[in-house]
């Protein structure tokens, strides 16, 4: 594991340092068990994790909620993984909101579903989503995601993508 940072990873994401540190993933799921499992999967894959139980909380965290000022230039989120089927705001609706934001639209959004979604919806998701995965997530899925994050941060660097 390559880590040139001299700061511990206990600093909160809003510190704004962007050397080669752990990717910060925001995981959104209304199921508390799935949140816990997803969190552990990501932590085991050397990611920093913040969880939210629905789209509204996720937007609030990102500073994109109605009435909020998007003043989070120091907030570093590398990827958002959201469950598709959350009551109140689906993963698709969350994806749209994020893609509309000038500050957050570059963040990779991954949609997770527990069943195969109809093709037409999948097509719409693929317009904005980085990847589309089935629950339950496997370690190999997370490895794939980490590669995406690495490529986004350093297009020329792929050496940390460990194949399984």
């Amino acid at each position, binding site marked *: 594991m390559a880590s040139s940072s001299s700061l511990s990873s206990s600093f909160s994401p809003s510190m704004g340092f962007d050397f080669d540190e752990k990717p910060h993933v925001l995981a959104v799921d209304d199921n508390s*068990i*799935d949140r816990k*499992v997803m969190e552990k999967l990501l932590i085991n894959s050397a990611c920093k994790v913040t969880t939210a139980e629905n789209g509204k909380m996720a937007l609030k965290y990102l500073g994109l909620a109605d009435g909020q000022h998007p003043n989070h230039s120091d907030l570093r989120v590398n990827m958002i993984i959201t469950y598709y089927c959350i*009551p109140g705001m689906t993963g698709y609706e969350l994806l749209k909101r994020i893609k509309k934001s000038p500050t957050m639209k570059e963040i990779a959004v991954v949609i997770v579903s527990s069943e195969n979604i109809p093709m037409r919806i999948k097509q719409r998701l693929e317009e904005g989503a980085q990847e589309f995965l089935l*629950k*339950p997530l*496997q370690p190999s899925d997370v490895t794939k995601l980490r590669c995406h994050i690495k490529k986004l941060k350093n297009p020329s660097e792929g050496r940390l993508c460990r194949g399984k």
Partner: protein
Amino acid sequence: MDLLSQLQRQLADFTASLYREGFVDDQFTQLQKLQDESSPEFVVEVVSLFFEDCEKLVNNMAKALEQQVVDFKQVDSHVHQLKGSSSSIGAARIKNVCIAFKTFCEAQNREGCLRCLQQVNHEHAQLKTNLQTLFTLERQIVANGGSIPAMQ
């Protein structure tokens, strides 16, 4: 055979039977693989969370099914939650009951739903007992100087 070896043999046999009888599936193995020194109680924690959640959902389903006019969409959403979490921890039998349960919700079949609810209760109780046995064996192994296979 010394005590530790006996315990390890017991654990191996017991675990094998849980898989064989379909109580747990490969997803449970995945869950165990996630446990490490930084979170040595991870599986126990997730499983406890699951059982708490299961009880809550079952209560909600029961209440909804007691109503004069049953809101099957409500029941279905609870079943959906339970199906999701049981799938995530590898509770195969409970997951399978949920699959059937969903069909009855969609068909708005109250009797079918009530039968499934009973089954969920039954499977929940069985799994709880089985996993408690598993965790007890694991603790005994660790207490006797051994380590749990999945953590190696």
